[in-house]
């Protein structure tokens, strides 16, 4: 653990943090992601890419990409995080480093609309013939889209906003940004 932290600090001038036992998280600039992943893979033995996930930080106008890599010897996980701009999002393609990255990148491309130039097969992934906006973005109004697109059977109009109902009953305080992007 300590060697990983000092090495990454020396080479990339970043501040890795220990998340919990055998988990390290490190934030890095968008341009240095692939070199850091290559370093982790070739020099430190993190040979397995677990997942690439994406978080929509709509308040800050950014997407966060999280690359999760794993080392089999001591079962250590490193989460490499990077922020990219929400307007015309574009990210470096890493399917040359790990083949399986191709699948995750295609999924992120479809669900969040992030482009990966140089992707092996940049075609649709799960949604066939999808014409709406990328559905996993937080400003995509799922309910409105569903009501407009699909025919519904009458009789469900009295369905209440469960979230509101629960907060009222428990007296929980909802932060303003959450209210803004909640359903109603």
């Amino acid at each position, binding site marked *: 653990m300590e060697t990983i932290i000092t090495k990454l600090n020396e080479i990339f001038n970043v501040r890795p943090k220990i998340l919990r036992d055998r988990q390290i998280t490190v934030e890095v600039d968008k341009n240095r992601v692939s070199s850091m992943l290559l370093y982790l893979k070739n020099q430190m033995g993190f040979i397995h890419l677990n997942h690439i996930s994406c978080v929509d930080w709509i308040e800050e106008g950014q997407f966060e990409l999280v690359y999760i890599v794993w080392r089999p010897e001591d079962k250590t996980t490193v989460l490499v995080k990077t922020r990219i701009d929400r307007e015309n999002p574009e990210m470096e393609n890493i399917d040359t480093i790990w083949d399986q990255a191709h699948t995750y990148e295609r999924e992120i491309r479809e669900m969040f609309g992030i482009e990966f130039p140089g992707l092996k097969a940049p075609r649709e992934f*799960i*949604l*066939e*013939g*999808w*014409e*709406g906006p990328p*559905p996993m973005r937080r400003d*995509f109004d*799922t*309910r409105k*889209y*569903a*009501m407009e*697109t*699909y*025919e*519904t*059977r009458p*009789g*469900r109009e009295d*369905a209440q906003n469960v979230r509101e109902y629960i907060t009222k009953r428990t007296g929980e305080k909802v932060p303003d940004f959450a209210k803004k992007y909640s359903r109603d």
Partner: protein
Amino acid sequence: MSDTKDIRIITRPTKEQIEQAKIDFAPRCTSAGRVNDKETQKTVEFILNFARKHSLFLLAYGTGCGAIEIPATLTSRYDAERLGIRGAATPRQADVLMITGYLSVKTLKRVIRVYEQMQDPKYVVAFGSCTINGGMYFDSYNTIKALDRYIPVDVYIAGCMPRPEAVLKGFAKLQEMIQNGNAGNGECYRKNLDWYRANQRKVIKNWDFPDEYNW
């Protein structure tokens, strides 16, 4: 084989030619089942429906969560085979199409293809509240909310998910409908194809199948 009219020449794959008596299937096919007298027709219908309702070959289209109840229904605990319900291997051999939950748009495309491949008489049993009004996926961006807008449905079984008893009750209802001659919507689907197609086109934008599907 004295009369040449009743003889045909057949070329075998080995180029050898053989003579064979002509077999004319057509008259037998058209004459069978053509009953003009009303009473006899009723009796024939009764017997046909009786036979149909006791041999339901099931094509379980296992979408959604409800597929997990099908093994329980078909195996020894509830033993649906005592009612004549058993699995079929392909759509062309099946009588009943069973849809066991929510359908995404992508799956709906396959279901329509399967339904159109089935032979008449064909019945559709929809299973779970997702097929009725969307269930807990009523606000999902990618699942349809009412199945009978896209293909005709004979029996809905409510529940999320329905237990095998409910499934058997649904099949009992279907059998009753078959005996009364109310079930089987293949005809209705063909007659109202425009309406169904229009609804299907509203949600399915891309009708092409990936290459590996096009057999």
